């Protein structure tokens, strides 16, 4: 029978109060000029003050234990909060990686010391993290990383380079995948994750400007950075397992299909005003696809919540979700009766410009769609 078992997840009644609370907060913030809704704001909207505000309200590290500053709420409650933030196009980039990946990673693999040291500040929305995985010659092929960890006394020295590190120029720490030993016959052996303090003078961060002039990405160079034992996550050599297990979190979240939601929201209003059945058809197809993606993503969250590791399903959500984000852009382009612009009076044209200029990134970051489809094919028994 069906290849994937995706059960409908029921959001408990209690989440609806939470949803209403978040929605009121966001409405107020938007009205007070706290933010302007934007496409792809989880990459581009870096706002420490906004993140701290969320931290105060208990909306970061929601599922983490209270003893580490968390709030011990359910995964479903967290889901509701983040989907509200994303749908609003709110500036959540500063704490995004800490909340989505680094916190859970430390909770699972970190030492007690690491948990106590890092998690509470993360949950307050005050500790910002970057991820160092890609290198110039290790893009889709992460097992080819060459950043090198050499023993030095009780600790290690890190040398090498990372690239495409989102926010490294604004963050405090970077989780860095590096090589502590030879790969041998298993290409995935000999890899470790270490925490690098980005303010260390032996760390050099150089900007990479995006095609729209934005500065989110960086090259990061390690000039023999000292890594004390306390900054290694889990055991040296465990890096690959840690990375792949975390990818399910990274890939199935609602940010993988809500990046262009602020545009879609306006697009629906535009189509409603047009009185054109086939324009409405095009937009209705997007709405229905979004409804299906949300159910898919909720199902995967349900599997994660009950301790499963839905690698295939998560890859499937990200592949379908990111393609959806680009379909929104395409349909919006069809309905645009003036050229999209980055600045101007019409929010529709501005949101469209954001979606167009950021679009190519959607299907590349976090695993290209080619890689993801390969994972799905493997899950289907074809590889």
């Amino acid at each position, binding site marked *: 029978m069906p290849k994937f078992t995706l059960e409908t997840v029921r959001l408990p009644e209690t989440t609806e109060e939470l949803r209403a609370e978040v929605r009121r907060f966001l409405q107020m913030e938007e009205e007070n000029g706290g933010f302007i809704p934007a496409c792809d704001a989880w990459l581009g909207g870096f706002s420490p003050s906004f993140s701290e505000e969320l931290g105060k309200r208990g909306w970061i590290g929601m599922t983490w234990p209270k003893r580490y500053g968390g709030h011990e709420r359910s995964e479903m409650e967290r889901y509701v909060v983040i989907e509200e933030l994303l*749908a609003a196009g709110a500036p959540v980039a500063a704490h995004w990686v800490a909340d989505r990946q680094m916190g859970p990673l430390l909770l699972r693999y970190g030492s007690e010391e690491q948990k106590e040291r890092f998690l509470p500040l993360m949950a307050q929305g005050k500790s910002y993290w970057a991820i160092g995985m890609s290198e110039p010659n290790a893009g889709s092929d992460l097992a080819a990383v060459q950043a090198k960890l050499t023993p030095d006394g009780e600790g290690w020295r890190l040398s090498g380079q990372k690239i495409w590190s989102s926010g490294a120029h604004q963050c405090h720490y970077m989780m860095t995948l590096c090589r502590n030993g030879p790969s041998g016959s298993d290409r995935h052996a000999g890899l470790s994750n270490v925490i690098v303090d980005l303010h260390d003078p032996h760390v050099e961060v150089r900007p990479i400007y995006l095609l729209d002039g934005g500065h989110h990405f960086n090259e990061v160079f390690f000039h023999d950075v000292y890594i004390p034992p306390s900054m290694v996550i889990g055991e040296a050599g465990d890096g690959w397992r840690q990375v792949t297990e975390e990818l399910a979190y990274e890939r199935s979240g609602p940010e993988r299909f809500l990046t262009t939601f602020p545009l879609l929201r306006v697009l629906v209003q535009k189509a*409603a005003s047009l009185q054109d059945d086939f324009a409405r058809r095009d937009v209705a197809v997007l709405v229905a696809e979004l409804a299906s993606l949300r159910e898919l993503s909720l199902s995967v969250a349900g599997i994660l919540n009950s301790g499963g590791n839905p690698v295939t399903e998560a890859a499937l959500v990200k592949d379908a979700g990111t393609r959806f984000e680009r379909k929104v852009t395409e349909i919006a382009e069809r309905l645009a009766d003036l050229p999209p612009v980055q600045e101007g009076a019409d929010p529709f044209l501005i949101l469209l410009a954001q979606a167009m200029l950021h679009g190519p990134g959607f299907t590349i970051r976090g695993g290209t769609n080619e890689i993801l489809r390969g994972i799905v094919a493997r899950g289907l028994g074809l590889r």
Partner: protein
Amino acid sequence: MSGDVRRMVADTARRIFQGQCTPELLAAADNHQFPTKLWSLLESNAFTKIDEEGLNTGDALVLLEIAGYYAVPGPLASSLAASKMMVDMGVPIPSGVVTCAIQPGGAIELTHEGERAVVSGTWVNVPWGRASDTVLAVFQTLGGWFAAVLNSRNVSWEKGQNLGGEPRDTLQASHVSPSFVQEISEQQSSTLRALLALSRVALTVGALERMLNMTVEYAQQRAQFGRSIGKFQAVQHQIAEMAAETAAVQALFNRAVYGVDQGEDMMRYASLAKIRIAEAIRVVTAGAHQVHGAIGFTQEYSLHYFSRRAWAYRHEYGNETWWSKILFAEIGNRDLWDFLTQPTRAE
């Protein structure tokens, strides 16, 4: 009905269909032979009607999904929908094969001769009309919406078929006296239409699942250029896309069933699902046929029972363009995000 009971229904249905839906039965049904034995098995399991002792609407949708997986012939969806309406109307569900006719726009006349109501008019695309004993015919006149129970022998049938080779007959009633007729609310007529549309979604979801499975198996077995075609990256990616489309409509369909169980507005889910499934049908049927190559295109190989039905079902009870108007009406003045996250309950 509880989850356990629903699972039992599903298991029983799967067992019956697996045993009954042989290539011979499907081929015979393709020549419009009514599957008499299968139908009595379904009747004896109380699978042909929605009523208070048997299946509820959610169960029926789950049953239809499984029926779609096996390309079960016969007017199962129509029978289930008609019985639901009859129960709502307080009419006893007749024995024999029941089908359902819902007016697509032509003029129907309802007059009274003394105490006797008389109906004249035409209904198109009535599933298996020729093989039915009873028709629940729904129609609109200047006086409002009505539902009438007609004896199939008192009307004339013009044979037709959909792209799936399933009988879709034209009912012509000329001065026919219904055994029962009642005015219904517009809401009731909408709910019937939504249920019929969701039943097509259910059947299609099953068909898509089946095509995905067949395609994966075929790709694993069929070799070209010295290796199984499933090893080619282009084939893998095409099948991955089929899987994503199938999973998406499954998830949405499951949510619809849950919503029906909760008493949420059925038009909402019918429109979302009918719209969403159009693209899934396109991707999955195209992918399945492309991977299968010429063999999948033949009458002998069973893929077409699923692909042709899926093509047909996209258009039955309104294609996605038709339902898009309904979806926009459902959204109304609501903010899109609010609409998506807060389903309203049925009135």
